[in-house]
């Protein structure tokens, strides 16, 4: 077994967030949902897209970091996976975009 895979601990051991912090994260997610619905009601035109997607990004980061324990992850490869996937997707969308907006 190589070094980066050693010192593994099953996730269920209480080295991650506490029960209370899970509930706190849930509360934050609900508040953010309420916020994004409220913001959408204001008719902010184009800013609404940025605000709504920004809030969605914050919400999913909370889920990734706390519910999915990415914040407590010690393996580099797993930490990098989501940025790699998002990056690949950004490139796919970006280069397609370069065609669609200039056509």
């Amino acid at each position, binding site marked *: 077994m190589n070094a980066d895979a050693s010192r593994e601990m099953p996730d269920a051991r209480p080295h991650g967030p506490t029960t209370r912090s*899970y509930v706190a994260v849930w509360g934050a997610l609900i508040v953010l949902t309420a916020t994004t619905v409220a913001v*959408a009601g204001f008719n902010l035109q184009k800013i609404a897209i940025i605000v709504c*997607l920004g809030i969605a990004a914050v919400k999913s980061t909370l889920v990734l970091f706390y519910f999915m324990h990415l914040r407590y992850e010690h393996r580099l490869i797993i930490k990098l996976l989501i940025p790699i996937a998002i990056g690949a997707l950004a490139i796919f969308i970006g280069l397609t975009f370069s065609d669609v907006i200039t056509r």
Partner: protein
Amino acid sequence: MNASEDAHAAGRLGIWLFISTEIILFGGLFLLYSMYRLKNPADFHAGSLELNRVLGTLNTVILITSSLCVALAIDSLGKGRTRKSAWFVAATIACAFGFLIVKFFEWTAKFHHGLYPNAKVLLSLPKGENLFFGLYYLMTGLHGVHVIVGIGVLSVMLVRVLRGTITPQNPTYLVNSGLYWHLVDIIWIFLFPLFYLIT
């Protein structure tokens, strides 16, 4: 290091790789959405006004709560409280059914208004609205399939927790199912504003 911890480490990397592929699978649809939205902003605006924001919000709350439940199920299992853990898994499954029921009513209402693929009413609307609803059905449909698969996976986990084949020492399957379920939640976190909120 014992064998179960090895298997756990491998399973965790495997499931995260799988999650990456799921992100890219939905990513193809997000790509289409962004390109079509770019070309038809007014029609997408009109389309999203047709959707029921209350039901969308309700479903968001349901899924977030289900994510909390599955996180707490793993948390309880880690503390050795198997019974409690099973209850939380059951609650997650209940939330998943709740989500599907709400979705069912939403879809049926749209069908009654003739807003389904290839329907005369939908085809008579501007083309951008047809695209909006096409993507709406494709993306929420694919997400719904993932919810159904999640129900199946979590049901198996429930049985295994009750039977004692998932234990505090050997939680890998439950942990990985939880990761999958959180992914389903994250995808909805993005679908919700894209279809219901941005007008």
